[in-house]
């Protein structure tokens, strides 16, 4: 008689179809054309990028009439260097930088953005970065969403912003 059974493997395998909301679809279309857009709340004036379709502070609906374009450049407000944990399905193998970036014209940051083109040890808060777009919008090879359309961010070469410009923008 062999060893008692102490564990059992249970494989979860679920197929999802996720319907894209009209707000996200419009944002994706604009991203494909190389424009980063947000919604400006008509009450408080905060600019949300990507747009949520509402302002969670004022509880008002926003739509295309509230759309504004922001720059594809901004200030890195904080970051981490990730050593990827090797769980099943993880494709990342090497260390990489993820940053929160306050785009010029936006009121809050976009989170967990890849920064490349600079040694990890030289990445710093307040650093100015610009988008490196991927694919060709005319050939339809550009990916969806922020992280699909923008391959990564890289230093723009502009002087760093002082603390007071980024300190209140961790998120």
């Amino acid at each position, binding site marked *: 008689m062999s060893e008692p059974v102490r564990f059992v493997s249970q494989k979860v395998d679920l197929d999802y179809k996720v319907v894209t909301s009209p707000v996200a679809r419009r944002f994706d279309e604009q991203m494909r054309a190389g424009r980063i857009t947000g919604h400006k709340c008509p009450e408080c004036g905060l*600019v949300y990028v990507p747009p949520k379709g509402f302002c969670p502070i004022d509880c008002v609906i926003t739509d295309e009439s509230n759309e504004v374009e922001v720059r594809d450049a901004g200030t890195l407000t*904080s970051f981490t260097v990730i050593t990827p944990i090797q769980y099943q399905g993880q494709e990342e193998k090497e260390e990489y930088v993820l*940053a929160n970036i306050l785009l010029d014209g936006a009121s809050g940051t976009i989170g967990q953005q890849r920064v490349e083109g600079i040694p990890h040890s030289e990445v710093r808060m307040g650093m100015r970065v610009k988008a490196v777009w991927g694919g060709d919008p005319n050939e339809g090879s550009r990916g969806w969403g922020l992280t699909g359309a923008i391959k990564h961010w890289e230093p723009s070469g502009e002087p760093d912003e002082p603390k007071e410009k980024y300190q209140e923008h961790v998120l």
Partner: protein
Amino acid sequence: MSSERVAVVGCGQTHHRKVRDDLSMAGLLREAAERALADAQMDWKDVDAVVIGKAPDPFEGIMMPEIYLADALGCAGKPIMRVHTAGSVGGSTAVVATHLVSSGVRERVLTIGFEKQSEGDTTWGLGGGRSGSVGAGGYFAPHMRAYIDRSGAPDYIGPAVAVKDRRNALKNPYAHLKLENLTIETVMESPYVWEPVRRLESCPTSDGAAAMVLTNEKGATEGAAWVHGTAIRSELGQFPGRDPVNPRGGRDCAADVYSQAGITDPFNEVDVAEIYVPFSWYEPMWLENLGFAAEGDGWKLVEKGVTDITGELPINVSGGVLSSNPIGASGMLRFLEVALQVRGLAGEHQIDGARTGVGHAYGGASQFFAMWVVRNEKP
């Protein structure tokens, strides 16, 4: 806050380990619950209602474990409910259980927080099954960097917290990590996982459970801990102007619970606190957020040893989340440990004469907060 006074009459926890391969998930809850019932001198039949909490289902891949656990927790003919608030769930579960008693609806409530992290992968779960999940540490790391930048804290503060909590864990027979001879240097030599956070500044993944029996005054036994305040706050995960370094939800939660307990000067009026510190830098951050230190001064308490087991305000003398992290139980363990302290039952990590204790948990994107204040005397 309440019409009925609430007493903590039973506390029980598992021996937390990387894998409790000797127990099923139900067996894990039972180990904690039976210890709590024994402490309360009660049996399963004495319990009126059960309130359980665990982290989101993808972590272990059992959907609605409360269904399968109802049998194992003696719930035939009784109410059982489950609370969901991500990492803070152990705390909010205890708060819900407290309210069932304080409202007069139930007399004797068993509450259990649990997690069997070994059955799945939390980083995978947090990423919704996709590649590129950075886990909780990867999400929180930029917030810790912002704290360091803002406060000007020296780089050894995080490692100092890691050493302190692991030394405390050596005094706690239930703690998962038992790291002997840890020094600030060895912590600083350990590799970064989510820079600026090193491996030894991060919580482990644990299997474990925590359980408490709460009663009204009629059911209270000699030597119970008494609940003097409970508070829960939540806030949106992200909006412009939100400050994850010192979140408004946490400040408001603390102010509310102190007000219920009549605390005006937390640093001097609290004898012992267990706060949710899964990554070392959260100790100084939460010391400020919870009003134990002025903004920017939290790290100075760590540096001066004020939060050591021998210090003026001992923090996480059980070893904390940095030493044992069964997620759904981690918040409840904070609440439970301070109840043990004011009951004088914490064993080798007992703070002599502890009369007022604060338990705290946080979760989600630093957006869910739960706290309680317990004392050795009735409110």
